[in-house]
């Protein structure tokens, strides 16, 4: 059968599994969620969503089970809700499930159409939303339910001073940069006329007019856009540091003053264009840095928003909702299905099932018995349970992970930026040389004006344009090349770090293996008598093991007879029991076989599924998580370029050993918790290794944040993607090979560019100091050096074409 697109989420599935509608033959849905949202939008006249979505694919609607009434609690109000000047209420939220601009449109539209909502604006870049509503008309819980009804979810976040500052800073830099770019573009146009005039002849008065126009455009660039460089130079000098800001500001100011002198009657040429160019180029680089900082703040807000904000405690039989900080050791906490455990504790009562994927990465729910440890942040996927808190929130696992992430993001070591390091010494040297030149010329010739012109030529010719361009231009070409191959480098600096990496740590589930179970081996014969019963039993559960068995049967047997089972009973964490024709049949793991008191021994390193009939095991399936395509090729490639490869997994030694052997990997670490993984990365770094970590789950987020470069596979958890430095969009391991090749090649060109600009300066500065270069030639040759650097960078992609 052919694949067909889901009418709502646009994901493709086999036609046989799609939900269809009798009276609407053109629509196909992959799940009930998609069908529900489709009809909701259609009924509300919002079906133009499907035109806006274009070719974008979205995830099927999130099915949120937790109750939204906690959004109306007093403690929530005190912490997150603010009152506007008009008397309305306002809350900051992070919206989960946003994939494209159409998702934003839909959320804003649905909220705007909801009675009582004054304003709802969602930021597409960071998925943060600000909702303003009238408390008298609608409760916040209803607003949240509205968002959930269309398949998204919302978490509150506390807008920190850090976030407000980062947003303000970004806006400020954006304005300064935009004005600088605008003025520079105008100056460039005027420059075409000016430089053409040098060859075809231009009257002095005309040239004067051109200079006036350039003066008008360059003045705001120097004093408004360039203000941050003056500030940086001032604080640098105050702390006795000569920085790049000082060179940029002094170079630009001196050139500006000299040009003013020419404009108002002095002899020579004015260089207002150089003033604008210097400031603009360096400012663009600075703006990119500011964006990086803002992204780090947004990531942290996303992580904080995932933390539950209150817990239900039971005191003398009375339930009470309290803020997280108020939970004490010894309190009895109740967790409903779908809710997160708030603090660490031990289970009271018979049994519970918890989804611990946020900690261990394992997608299968974990069964817990009385007295078992419940970890904060894990989700109750079974019935309502109660447990006793053994730690308060501040000492619990979830809080530890959040704090560690916060530290890691704040102190993520900036790589030693070769260019900045170089330009620090370069700046001092050039300023000193210019001063010495001025002194020597004035002392020898006695002509102040000539001495000034020569000194300015030295500064202009040495203006670190080529030096400033060497890294960004090459990085830009490297990054765009990587993007073509489905690799997203979040910041340019990771190209350099990546090129120096000597160790790769790979997570197992989802990175080396597919994360999906497949039948590897069957012990026993699947006879025509057993087949329909086995199929019917595996079809009665959505557990990954049952699904894998069902898939195996469908693939290997044609036309399986459909039969009805009775008394189907789920044995939590073990398997299923049912009746057929007065026989008892059962399918599940070894614990189910023990529970049925069947004497049966089976030794395997794989996940196992036994099928029993009438007190006898008739079939045993061994299931394995298949290897991802290209794993072996990746390991071969990394070995040839002398990069160490280590597999780190939360799985047990047996499984880790088997997977490592199957791909020819010698080095692996097993049974690592998220904190162990992070510590392991830390210890590698302390031993002088440069580490890339590749992972996909929330459990990898902490280890990812500690690595020099973090890579998240595209289908991974939101948090892992937010924290990573490089995102692999197509989920293919070949992309890791590509990132090594691209980053190493780009960095080689960055070094070449730096060498070009240094050689250029070594040759031209002495000529300028000797007075053989007039400022005009100095400015032209400075442009030439920039062109050389840009031209050289263009060669980066040539290898690919070959």
């Amino acid at each position, binding site marked *: 059968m052919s694949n067909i697109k889901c009418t709502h989420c646009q994901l493709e599935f086999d036609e046989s599994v799609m939900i269809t509608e009798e009276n609407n033959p053109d629509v196909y849905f992959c799940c009930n969620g998609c069908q529900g949202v489709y009809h909701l939008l259609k009924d509300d006249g919002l079906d*133009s969503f499907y035109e*806006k979505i274009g070719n974008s694919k979205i995830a099927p609607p999130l099915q949120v089970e937790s109750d939204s009434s906690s959004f109306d609690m007093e403690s929530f109000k005190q912490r997150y809700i603010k009152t506007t000047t*008009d*008397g*309305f209420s306002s809350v900051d939220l992070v919206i989960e499930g946003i994939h494209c*601009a*159409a998702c*934003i*449109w839909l959320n804003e*539209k649905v909220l*705007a159409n909801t009675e*009582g909502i*004054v*304003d709802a604006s969602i*930021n*597409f*870049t960071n998925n943060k939303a600000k909702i303003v509503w*009238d408390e*008298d008309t609608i409760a916040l819980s209803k607003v949240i339910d509205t968002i959930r009804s269309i398949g998204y979810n919302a978490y509150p976040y506390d807008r920190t001073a850090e976030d407000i500052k980062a*947003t303000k800073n970004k*806006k400020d830099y*954006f*304005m300064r940069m*935009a*004005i600088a770019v*605008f003025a520079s573009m*105008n100056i460039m146009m005027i420059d075409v006329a000016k430089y053409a005039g040098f060859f075809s002849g231009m*009257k002095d*008065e*005309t040239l004067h*007019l051109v200079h*006036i*126009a350039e003066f*008008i*455009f360059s003045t705001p660039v120097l004093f408004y856009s360039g203000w941050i460089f003056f500030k940086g130079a001032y604080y640098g000098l105050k702390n006795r540091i000569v920085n790049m800001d000082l060179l940029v500001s002094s170079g630009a100011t001196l050139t500006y003053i000299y040009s003013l002198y020419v404009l108002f009657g002095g002899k020579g040429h004015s260089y207002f264009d150089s003033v604008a160019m210097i400031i603009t180029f360096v400012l663009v680089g600075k703006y990119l840095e500011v964006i990086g900082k803002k992204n780090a703040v947004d990531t942290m807000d996303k992580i904080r928003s995932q933390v539950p904000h209150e817990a239900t405690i039971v005191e003398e039989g009375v339930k009470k909702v309290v803020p997280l900080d108020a939970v004490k050791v010894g309190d009895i906490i109740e967790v409903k299905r779908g809710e997160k455990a708030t603090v660490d504790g031990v289970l009271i009562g018979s049994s519970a099932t918890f989804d611990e994927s946020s900690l261990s990465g394992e997608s299968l729910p974990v069964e817990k018995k009385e007295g078992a440890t419940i970890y904060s942040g894990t989700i109750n996927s079974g019935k309502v349970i109660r447990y006793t808190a053994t730690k308060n929130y501040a000492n619990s696992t979830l809080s530890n992970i959040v704090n560690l992430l916060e530290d890691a993001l704040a102190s993520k070591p900036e790589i030693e930026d070769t260019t900045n390091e170089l330009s620090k010494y370069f700046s001092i040297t050039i300023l000193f040389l210019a001063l010495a030149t001025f002194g020597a010329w004035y002392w020898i010739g006695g002509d102040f004006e000539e001495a000034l012109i020569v000194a300015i030529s030295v500064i202009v010719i040495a203006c670190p344009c080529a030096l400033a361009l060497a890294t960004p231009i090459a990085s830009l070409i490297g990054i765009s090349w990587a993007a073509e191959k489905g690799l997203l480098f979040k910041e340019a600096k990771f190209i350099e770090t990546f090129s120096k990496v000597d160790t790769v740590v790979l997570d197992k589930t989802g990175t080396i293996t597919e994360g999906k179970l497949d039948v590897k081996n069957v012990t026993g014969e699947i006879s025509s008598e057993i087949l329909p019963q086995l199929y019917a039993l595996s079809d009665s559960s959505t557990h990954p093991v049952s699904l894998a068995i069902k898939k195996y049967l469908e693939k290997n047997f044609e036309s399986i007879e459909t039969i009805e089972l009775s008394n189907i009973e789920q044995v939590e964490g073990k398997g299923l029991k049912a009746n057929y024709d007065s026989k008892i049949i059962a399918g599940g793991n070894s614990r189910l076989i023990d529970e049925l008191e069947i004497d049966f021994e089976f030794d395997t390193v794989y996940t196992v599924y036994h099928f029993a009939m009438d007190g006898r095991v008739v079939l045993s399936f061994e299931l394995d998580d298949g290897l991802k395509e290209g794993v072996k090729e990746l390991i071969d490639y990394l070995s040839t370029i002398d990069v160490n490869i280590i597999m780190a997994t939360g799985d047990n030694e047996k499984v880790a050993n088997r997977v490592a052997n199957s791909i020819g990997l010698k080095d692996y670490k097993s049974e690592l918790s998220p904190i162990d993984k992070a510590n392991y990365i830390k210890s590698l770094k302390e031993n002088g290794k440069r580490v890339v970590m590749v992972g996909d789950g929330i459990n990898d987020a902490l280890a990812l944040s500690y690595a020099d470069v973090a890579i998240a596979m595209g289908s991974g958890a939101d948090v892992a993607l937010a924290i990573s430095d490089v995102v692999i969009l197509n989920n293919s391991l070949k992309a890791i090979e590509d990132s090594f090749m691209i980053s190493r090649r780009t960095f080689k060109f960055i070094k070449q560019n730096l060498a070009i600009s240094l050689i250029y300066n070594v040759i031209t500065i002495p000529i300028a100091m000797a007075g053989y270069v007039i400022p005009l030639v100095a400015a032209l040759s400075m442009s030439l050096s920039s062109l050389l650097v840009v031209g050289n960078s263009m060669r980066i992609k040539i290898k690919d074409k070959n």
Partner: protein
Amino acid sequence: MNSVLILELTVGIIVSFTLLGIFIWAAKGGQFDDSKKMMDGLLFDSEEDLQAAYEKEQKVKAMKEKKEQNKKEEV
């Protein structure tokens, strides 16, 4: 010749600074705060969207007036 050039330059500079002023006004109003949304602006620009924006403005105005009235009544 120069008088023509002066006129051209003056007009050019005035026009470009006016455009810059409009840009600054838009940027200060938050139009460029969300870089991704800005790039997809075309999707939100149909006649229907404009109508919706107008209706939303009316709705907010009415809500504010109602709130104001409630406040007065309470006093």
